[in-house]
């Protein structure tokens, strides 16, 4: 494997690890703080539940990836220095 390919593979793996940690952390935060509220919404108000459900999954998709990109831009210069 050439040096350039090795570098991009390393970058991708680091980005993936950061993203995986954020995604898992996000789920545990939702589970810990919002699980009961979500279950109550499901029983009480389906409209808000529908909007909240979509918002939670979209947030997991978009916000965490943006956060990963921001964190990765901080990590990458240090990796390049090494």
């Amino acid at each position: 494997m050439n040096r350039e390919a090795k570098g991009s593979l390393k970058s991708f793996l680091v980005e993936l690890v950061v993203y995986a940690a954020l995604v898992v952390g996000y789920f545990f935060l939702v589970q810990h703080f919002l699980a009961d509220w979500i279950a109550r919404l499901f029983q009480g108000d389906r409209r808000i539940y529908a909007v909240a459900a979509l918002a939670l999954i979209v947030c997991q998709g978009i916000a965490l990836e943006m956060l990963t990109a921001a964190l990765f831009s901080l990590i990458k210069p240090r990796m390049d220095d090494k």
Partner: protein
Amino acid sequence: MNFLISGAHISPAYLIAVGFVVGLLGGFFGVGGSFLAGPALYAVGVPMNFVVGTDLAHIVGKSIVAARKHRALGNIDMKLGLIMVVGTIVGVEAGAQLIQWLKHSAHIDVAVGITFIVVLLGISSFMTWETIKTIRMHGHGKSPSKSRAGEHPSQTDPSATAHIARRIHGIKIPPYISLPVSGIDRVSIWAILLVAFIGGFFSGFLGGGAGYIRMPCLIYLLGIPTHIAVGTDLFEIIISASYGTITHALKGNVDILIALVMHTGAAIGAQIGATLTQFFGGPRIRMAFIPLPIIGIIIIIHGLLMGHPAK
């Protein structure tokens, strides 16, 4: 782990593993993966109504992750995607209405199952024939990472059935548009809307994102290069699956906590799958796609024989 909304008790590791596999396939092929995730949820005791809705919710998240990655790689034709949204939504509604109408019939599961089998078998057979012919004529095609700078995607993605797309491009029903990202100089908007309607219709009728139908339609009917078809299809799946998530959530068919656990695996799989497309040419991606409809057929036949619907 207990999920209060659906009342299911499922191991999170199982959900993450299922999500990862489906995410990987979704990122690489531009499909929602409901034909695998649906039966996988049903197998561990998730009630059937929650299977369909929850699967759609997790597809939204996974498709966003994969579509963002494909966008960064230049694999999404936004102009095409935005026009298709109209046809997709109309199609989803038409498919859902047909299902409602068929619900009065006693044999709805068999009717849906047989339709699914015929469509999937047709796609798989056609793609096998086309891919073999293309590889014999042109080789495996260039992966985007090996393409020369400034080389148009359509020049690196040969297809033995390009004449079908050329005929469709020749349809003379105005208005027309050009799709520079996909390398199409002129095509009738109606042709795009029809393809979007077909994908949306099957999404509403059979459930899931229907990427297994839309992706081949984009390649063979509209002549979109494979990599762009994968990315643009994911963009469409976000729209159709979001619409489906809202309607199913209103009916009480979505357990969002199950979807979030699945998405932890799916998001990682989707990142890897989307990145891998850089290293394969169009014909190779199409060739690797062929077993997917076959897996879907096996799952449906199993469901019909066991007496419960696969979706």
